[in-house]
């Protein structure tokens, strides 16, 4: 019996990108989530940042001050809590980018060490 051959379902071929897995290049679509993924950046411990918005309450260090890992640098209020910001390394304060009463945003560099 002769069968009528319908055209198979076509997919859009023009919009493929390539994805490399184990040295093999695959032609495929990418997802929004994959395209928007955050690329890894190594953490620079010399740049002291805050992880949440808040207010600077007290500052204990000045430019040129030698600090040890674990020393209190400043007190920062966020979510109704006073948080001690400690020095992540042994070093010297290069600059203090904030003053008492400043409102800071997420990921803002507040103190630079060297």
């Amino acid at each position, binding site marked *: 019996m002769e069968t009528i051959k319908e055209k198979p*379902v076509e997919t859009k071929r023009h919009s493929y990108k390539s994805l490399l897995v184990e*040295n093999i290049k695959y032609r*495929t679509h990418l997802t929004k*989530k994959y395209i928007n993924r955050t*690329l*890894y950046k190594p953490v620079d411990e010399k740049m002291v940042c805050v992880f*949440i*918005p808040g207010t600077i309450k007290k500052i204990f260090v000045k430019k040129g001050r030698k600090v040890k890992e674990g020393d209190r640098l400043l007190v920062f209020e966020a979510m109704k809590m006073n948080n001690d910001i400690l020095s992540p390394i042994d070093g010297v304060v290069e600059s203090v980018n904030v003053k008492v009463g400043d409102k800071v945003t997420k990921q803002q560099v507040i103190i630079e060490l060297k």
Partner: protein
Amino acid sequence: MGLKQKTADLKKRMREAVKGGGTKAIEKQKAIGKKTARERILAILDPKSFHEYDMFVKHAGTDFNMDKKFLPGDGVITGTGTISGHPVCIYAQDFTVAGGSLGWAHAKKITKIMDHAMKLKIPIIGINDSGGARIQEGVNALAGYGEIFYRNTQASGVIPQISVILGPCAGGAVYSPALTDFVFVVDGVSKMFITGPEVIKTVLGEEISMEDLGGAKVHCETTGNAHFYAKDEEECFYQIKELVSFIPWNNEIKATPYPKKSPKTKKYNIPDIIPADPRQPYDVRHIIKAITDDSEFFEIQELFAANIVIGFGRISGQTVGFVANQPLVLAGVLDVDSSDKGARFIRYCDSFNIPLVTLVDLPGYLPGVDQEHAGVIRHGAKLLYAYSEATVPKITVIMRKAYGGGYIAMCSAHLRADFVCAWPTAEIAVMGPEGAANIIFRNEIKNAEDPDDMRKQKVKEYKNKFANPYVAAAYGYVDAVIEPFETRKFIVHALEVSDHKDIIGPKKKHGIPPF
């Protein structure tokens, strides 16, 4: 009062109750494209099948002058009915009554219908449309949520639980849907989040709209909290009816069988769909449709982690759960989201006696720091756990690539697949030929006069020897190598002979899957 007057009194009371929050509140509800709670129930259930319970329940609030307020049905409608003849318990929060807020009596109505569903061993459908806890009732409102969450957990894996988000569902309230099996959302109507845009703005200074934070699209595409996306409520109700037709009423029985039908093989012909070059993509859903009755496939979480495809189809009238790598998206790799999505579905099918068919064609795991740091190890492990744990019939079809850890994870013989078949195009190997050749022949390639030429030659050598199904078949890891067009026949037979499959595992309270 005689019977006549008493009947008239009953009718008057019912009229009062059915009014809900009154004309004004109903108009407001309709103005934003939402149906009323009662309309929604009637639209989902078979005509005239709805039987309402607890219409005259009074709310329990006494503080803040609440005792002087009349809240019809306390803002939730509950009852039983049928969907295409399948019995279900159902409840719908009524936003027109005190914003659908959850008080003690409201929660009591919900937990009563949930208990009912457990006794009757039939699915429960919950329609969420609520501003949250009724603050005036204080800790009793919280107790109400807790009682619902506990029952959701107890009912999990016993009766199907379906959540429909048709309005706001915020704060603690989100955890009832999150504990259920399937979550339906509607564009522009559903809003789900733990903390709303206001709080996020105050605390974190991040500005975002409600839709972008927890709208239907976000939960279907990004978070994976929702399983079904619909443009409007009508489409959503249609999806619910479809789903109910595929699943059994409870975990002791199988899904209701349907009349057998053949696939539309003229439209979906496997040799026409699949490119021979393993690097070329195709839509794996077409392969599924080439196998299922009437080429029907009911996809779940279509928009989330589209690199794996999950959903229901029927084979010889019997419901089957499909798990398939999707070469069309991210080359079909396994990653955090796709492992999560696959694993949860496998556990669903296992709980509800739905055999699993796994279609394999994947290059491996998605490389990247973001993946590693997001915990692809523990998320990926969920897939291994779910497949190993599942005792329903497990049928695996290896179509093309099955490399490395991906091969093991995709229901290999080692995780106790009952039937493994491979197509002649299958490549079952420890890794892709390029990668393998680079390692095995590292020195030959490095020391060659023309390393690139040597590499090509060695890759070819490796491909010829290992990029096929016969090495695995020689060890018995593949039960049969079949022609692609025989796939349905293979699965039909596998299902026939495994109808009484029974496995008794080691005695334990429960395992500890990598949640």
